[in-house]
């Protein structure tokens, strides 16, 4: 098997999507993952493929996100067929709720700026009456919402499982419990070294989330990522009542209702706290007063992977060609691009042209 065509370091949503894409495009790929206690951003992902307002003020990121959103239906169909279980992908459109006229005005502003940036997405404003017609249980405090039919949602955990399983079914080599501590140049390729052994490959992609920051230096890359804590609260199963994706409440295919999510700078602390859970619950009960009776089954904190500007990094090392950095915090929304375009492209040893602007060099300017 060795050397592999491509080593992917990191078995989370980003790494698994790249590995699946590269393997199904014909490359011979190894996916290196940690064990049960890995910081798994998928666990903290709310599961939205959320496009309205994404990348406002940053046209390339907006275009990439919209592009990813358009690829999602085909991607989900292909993946679900391959693994024969439902990954929970639905595209009913998304609602962002507003509790005041001022919040509604902000959404109007987002729509205007999206148009100004050339974003090809329909976002409309719904007033109280429109919303009530769609969702009879909506609370009186909600004055309106913005709506886009392009928004969808998915179970991030099933998405990860499907990618890993599909990758293995396509002949990919999945190595869990392989914590990469060092990367060395070897011949015309690379060697990823863990305490238990080494794996050789012609090319290497670093998709190890928060763990990539240190590894990147070994191959002349810069991945200045930091953790951002997100807390989520989830309820018992409830009969279907919310046939939309929304910014703060998501009902899964199984019926559980996720309330999310917070954005906290707490270092590597992934615990939960009551004030944050209380705030999430309060919002949920304002949107759907009947939810107040529902039982909370679990809450959790998880760490997102944040670059300084919140946008992805896609970059090939100048000093070590064949070594790539791939990281983002929108591991769900961008999964379609990672799986269908970037993975296959990495199999050929390059990044797609349309992501070439997302290099880490953009951070140097601000540091000077």
């Amino acid at each position, binding site marked *: 098997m060795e050397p592999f065509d491509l080593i992917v370091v990191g078995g989370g949503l980003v790494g698994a999507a790249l590995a699946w894409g590269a393997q199904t495009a014909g490359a011979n790929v190894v996916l290196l993952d940690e064990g049960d206690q890995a910081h798994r951003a998928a666990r903290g992902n709310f599961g939205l493929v959320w496009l309205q307002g994404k990348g406002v003020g940053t046209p390339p990121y907006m275009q990439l996100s919209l592009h990813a959103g358009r690829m999602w239906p085909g991607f989900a169909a292909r993946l679900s067929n391959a693994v024969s279980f439902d990954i929970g992908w639905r595209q009913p459109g998304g609602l962002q709720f507003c509790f005041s006229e001022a919040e509604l005005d902000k959404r109007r502003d987002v729509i205007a700026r999206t148009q100004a940036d050339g974003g090809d997405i329909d976002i409309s404003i719904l007033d109280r009456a429109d919303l009530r017609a769609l969702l009879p*249980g909506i609370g009186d405090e909600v004055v309106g919402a913005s709506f886009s039919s392009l928004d969808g949602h998915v179970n991030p955990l099933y998405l990860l499982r499907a990618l890993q399983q599909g990758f293995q079914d396509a002949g990919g080599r999945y190595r869990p419990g392989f914590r990469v501590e060092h990367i060395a140049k070897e011949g015309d390729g690379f060697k990823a070294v863990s305490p238990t052994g080494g794996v050789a490959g012609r090319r290497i992609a670093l998709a190890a989330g928060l763990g990539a920051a240190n590894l990147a230096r070994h191959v002349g890359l810069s991945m200045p990522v930091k953790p951002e804590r997100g807390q989520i609260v989830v309820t*018992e*199963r*409830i*009969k279907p*009542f919310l046939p939309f994706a929304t910014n703060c409440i998501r009902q899964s295919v199984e*019926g559980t209702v996720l309330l999310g999510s917070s954005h906290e700078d707490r270092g590597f602390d992934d615990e939960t706290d009551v004030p944050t859970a209380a705030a999430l619950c309060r919002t949920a009960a304002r949107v*759907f007063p*009947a*939810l107040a*009776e*529902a*039982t909370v089954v679990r809450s959790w904190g998880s760490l997102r992977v944040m670059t300084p500007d919140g946008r992805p990094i896609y970059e090939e090392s100048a000093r070590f060609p064949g070594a790539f950095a791939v990281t983002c915090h929108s591991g769900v929304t961008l999964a379609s691009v990672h799986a269908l375009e970037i993975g296959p492209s990495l199999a050929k040893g390059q990044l797609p042209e349309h992501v070439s602007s997302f290099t880490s060099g953009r951070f140097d300017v601000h540091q000077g």
Partner: protein
Amino acid sequence: MFTRVEPGSASLSGGNVLDFEGSPVPFRSGDSVAAALLAAGVSPLRETPVDQSPRAPYCMMGVCFECLVEIDGRQNQQSCLTRACPGMIIKRQHGARTLR
């Protein structure tokens, strides 16, 4: 399935009666709702939201959550941890909670 060690310690003639799905169920003072229902031969108490399989109390000490019922309009309540009270209205829990 169950009977009282002391016959007659729960009867419909006393005030200790609750309502299960429209039928009167007597209980002994201090009974949990789950015990009262089991004593009256009620089973199952719920159907799971996952595959609608019938379930009845398993552990009687708050661990298994198999005894979930609707009590006085509140759904998915642990009947083994709730003391029976006169006039309580108990209903079977059919699958997942309904948002009302």
